[in-house]
């Protein structure tokens, strides 16, 4: 429980979710600056004629219209989450015989890594000779599992009443809960070496983390009542490195790495009731709430292939 979801947060994810409106790429129509279909959008034409709109540097001609790229691939998110101790608050009633408000020594939380299909969608703006663009990641909703670590997982949350009487409350184990996350990332990307087969790129951007459908799944925590897991939204800066390789024609392969400066995520679980098998007098106790502050610095690695158009 504790903190459960928390981490979730982390999600720094990068992944973005098209949860309820999956995008059919066939529906996407790209337009040029004049609003005409950019049917000829694609790989750069060879040897463009000199003119006033020639780029100041770079190997290729400055495109007349922006260029879209789409990469389908696999996204792997490593949360790199770290948390402080899980903090109890609002402890009252029989639970106060066993635990006190405050941090639980030796406790922490973590998030699991995820791997999911994803789309990298980018648009190179013509004003920068196609070298500067914006990019985002589209992916199905991602679900992070919240894990307990340390004493909170391995020892009873409230082993003894009044320091002497066993409560019968077992350790929670590693499972805490899960949450879906929607952390859209938008980066501004500079792709070097226009017209070359291999184009490295760098980017910077921002990510906004939003968790939803956060749920405590630990059977001990859900035996009596359903705790309420709330995870605050968070914002993080994003740094990006990548490599585009033109495989053939418009087809490119891409390896993209994004590192987030860190989400500072506050998570809180309320309405925690735990059955007390060794104290049938009370049946269960209301533990109150737990909270945890998680800092997640996710690294997103996407490998995929797609087209420019």
């Amino acid at each position, binding site marked *: 429980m504790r903190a459960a979801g928390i981490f979730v947060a982390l999600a720094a994810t990068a992944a973005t979710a098209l949860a309820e409106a999956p995008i059919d790429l066939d529906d996407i129509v790209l337009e040029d600056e004049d609003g005409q279909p950019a049917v000829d959008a694609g790989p750069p034409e060879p040897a463009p004629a000199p003119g006033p709109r020639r780029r100041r540097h770079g190997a290729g001609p400055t495109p007349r219209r922006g260029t879209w790229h789409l990469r389908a691939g696999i996204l792997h998110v490593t949360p790199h989450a770290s948390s402080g101790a899980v903090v109890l608050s609002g402890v009252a*009633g029989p639970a106060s015989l066993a635990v006190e408000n405050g941090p639980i020594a030796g406790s922490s939380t973590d998030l699991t890594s995820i791997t999911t299909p994803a789309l990298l969608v980018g648009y190179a703006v013509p004003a920068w000779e196609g070298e500067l663009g914006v990019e985002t990641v589209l992916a199905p909703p991602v679900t992070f599992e919240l894990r307990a670590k340390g004493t909170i997982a391995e020892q009873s949350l409230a082993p003894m009443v009044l320091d*002497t009487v066993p409560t019968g409350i077992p350790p929670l184990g590693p499972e805490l809960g899960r949450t879906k996350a929607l952390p859209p990332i938008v980066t501004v990307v500079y792709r070097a070496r226009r017209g070359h087969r291999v184009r490295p790129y760098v980017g910077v951007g921002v990510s906004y983390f939003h968790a939803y*459908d956060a749920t405590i799944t630990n059977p001990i925590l859900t035996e009596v009542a*359903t705790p309420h897991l709330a995870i605050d939204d968070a914002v993080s800066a994003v740094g990006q490195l990548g490599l585009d390789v033109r495989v053939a024609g418009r087809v490119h392969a891409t390896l993209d790495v994004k590192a987030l400066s860190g989400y500072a995520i506050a998570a809180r679980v309320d309405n925690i009731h735990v059955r007390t098998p060794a104290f049938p007098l009370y049946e269960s106790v209301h533990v109150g709430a737990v909270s945890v502050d998680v800092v997640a610095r996710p690294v997103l690695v996407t490998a995929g292939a797609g087209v420019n158009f």
Partner: protein
Amino acid sequence: MVHWRRLWPAVLIATAGCEVGEDGPPPLTSEPGVIFSYPHDGQRDVPLGARLVVSFTDPVDVAAVTAGCSLGADGGVVGAFCVRGPGGLVATPVLVAGPKDNVVLLESAAWEAGATYEVFVRPAVLWGKATNLDAAAPLVRFTAGNPTSLGGRAPTVIAVNGDDPAAYVAGSGATPRFPFVDFTTIRVALSEPLDPATAVYGDTVRLVDADGALVEAALLTQGPHLTIDPVADLTNSPRYRLELGAGLHDLSGDALAPVAFELAPLPSRVGGRELAQVLACIPGREPSYAAGGFINQVELTAPLIGDATIAMVDNTLAAVMANPAGFGPLIPLTLRKGQRLTMQPLPVKLGGEIATPLTTGPLQVQMAADATVYLARNPFRDPARLPDDELAPVAAYLAFDVVVTASDAVGNAALNQQVLGVQATGLARIYDGGLEIDSVGGLDLDLLGLDRATSNMVLRLSTTTARAAPGDDAPPRVTSTFPADGARDVPADAALRVTFAEGLDAAAATRDGAVTLTGAAAVPVRVRVDGSTLIVTPRQPLAYGAAYTLEVSGMVRDLAGTAAAPTRLGFRTVDLATSAPAPLALAAARPGVPCALDGATATSPGRCRDGASSDDRYAPFALAADLPVELTFQQPLDRGTVTLGTACGTGSVRVERLDPSGACTGVARGRLVVGEDRLSFIADGGWEPGARYRVVIHGGDDGDCDAGELCGRNRLPFNSDVLDGLADRGDAGGADLVLPFVAAPASADRYAMTTRAWPVADGNGNGVLDAGEVASSTNRAAMRIVGTSGMVRSATLNGPDCVPGTPAREACMYLSGALPVTMGTLQHACTIDGATVAACIPVELSPQILYGTSLSMNATVAVIGTLSDQRTQQLVLRLRTPAGQPLMSHIVVGADGQAALRARLPLYLDAPSMKLLAGLAGHDLASKPITVDVAGPVAFTADGRIQISLANVAAVPLAVELSAIGIGIGTIAMEIPAGEMKMQLVGDAAKGGR
């Protein structure tokens, strides 16, 4: 076609659709309603003065609670908060208290012994919002205990560990409310008090295991309560059996029908270890959320000493919790015996205002046996809801037995006592990380053997991990004894008492060899522990004039198991040896007077036979319904001659019921207690107010102790007519002494006791200080001759100078006797002898007789010559009731600020056996009126008995007229100098006996 900008709305839509997870149904908490009551529903053996407490979740509607009650046409109770007993609705007003006006108290109820009451609490009490109050049925039913003898009925067991006894009878189908745990002390409540002498562990009370082996246990007895506390927890056998045998008798001698109870203890331990807890009892002016009153204090209601509140000081107790998983929805705990709660001193002020020298110092309330506590689901809470929340916590039930001791030695001797079978109920709230048990319970405390103080205790015990309970390794210390070491006037039937500073382990103290009594040979004794007092009763009367040694060995231990330092006590019994025995005579009678009567009229039972015809007639005799007849003699009885009449006109002692014409209609049913020199008759169920009775003592008509006659130990029959002489066999016998009386209603604010002159020099009552008798500086009058007149030229008193410090020679007249007194309640602006004092307590003195030892004088009479060794013989001082009015005295604040008794004693002085010149000369010491103004402090003896030390405040003149052949020949003028008539009247010990 979708414009690219529509991608962001898609993301946003996805975001907007995210809701946090839905919560499940929250656990249910309490709704408005009742959460607690004391007594609890079904409680038995509720103390008669116990407060009724009902607590609620929310503030009550004061107007509804106090609106009063009535009975509807259908007999139903109409009202928001009502109590109905056997006599109808209880009219005592209720109070609203508690931290948020959520507690309703009925403070001053006086529950009728053995009666069942119903408490009706309607939803209107909570403004109609209560969800657990019935509109018709009573909320609580409880039954009051019975601390007085029922008489004529066999005692029955009314509760075992607070439950219906049937719950512990195999095959009954009944089950106890709480499980029996291996550490549970067994508490038995009976329908009436038991004779403690009949409760002998291993004999009439037995706890045996499945193999029939006796379990070592301490047996505590007090009133209608038995407590059996096994020395070790009951872990060695799956079943135990408590057997109460027919040898258990009530105070009327009726036997208990043998009964047995089956006990199958559940194990308390978790993995063989105890779950130790520490409970703190911290004083503070904080109202209890359960009980209304302030926590950790005892409120005492007692007109005798006024109302008092005694606060506890900081205390810590050790508790042991049973396996909380082993008993379903309850948790048993125990508090081991010997632990104590310290309380502030009890101010002992008569009537609450008149200080006495009795101080208690801090009081100690010790667990006399392992206390039992259960935490259980709140019975008023909807079972569908969670068992606990702040408004309606779980319930707590406490059962315990306590020993109360005082730090001051005299206070301890006077007030130490045990109170058994205390039941308290409360709520157990979780607060600040601890368990906080607020409970309320009633207990009746004995006050000096005169009164029972209703005490209501509010106790808060809080778990703590920051403290440790104190240990007790100090040996128990003797604070007083009776008799005192070296005493020489000990009654032969005395119950010997050794009082300690703390409670004693009854199991250890009653083992063979723990206490021994040795005279010429070892004397078998019965040892009983009452509070912190060892009561040692010889199984046979001691020899008179013999030396004994009482030894308390180190086998005697306190409740914590620490051995007492061996104590040795030497004493001698009173010496009755004499060459001039006198017949048995009464010193005091309640009701009545200690002499045969004549001269009865329609308004008076008459006057003492053979007194002057001008003597005052006595007012009609009356006896309160709850008091015994008490007959105190001036010397020991021959117990074998005491026969209680079983029909009109039979027996040497008769208590008969009369019809309006005065004819006997039968004997009164009751129990006659025979003491060394006292008879007490306790009527079964008390006297019927308004009914007529009489007490008759038959001594025969001659000097032979014949069958059916009451005789003294010297085999001389009872002398009913002391004014006709009381010197020798020739004075024995006489007309039956008949004392008619009418029973009066019992009164709760009058305290009757029989005081007696103590110590007494003339133990054999023959009017002479015999060789073996011990002179005393109290209970004597120093007589001085101040002049002569007429033919009496001179006179001198013989014998040792009673007051050596004066130039004159005084002779000592040693006084003996008894004086029943009745104390009233405090009054203000009392007028006494024409002066007004701020406060007083009226004390009615019963018109009894003081006997004085003979005085010897030499007189020189003209013509006759010198008369040597002229003896008054035994003197009789009769208290008068002029004009038939009660003889009143008063306890006031004395010069030292302490209680003092002031009395004017009108007396008749008689010397019925005095013969001058072998009867040739006469005297006027017959119905000679004298008046003695006396005053002196009301204090306490070292062994805790009330002691009134009186002395005459002014010289008492006494002119004895001598005559010969009816012609006056002169006067011997005597006086008792101021302060030299000293009477020390001592009450009985609170635990019985002298």
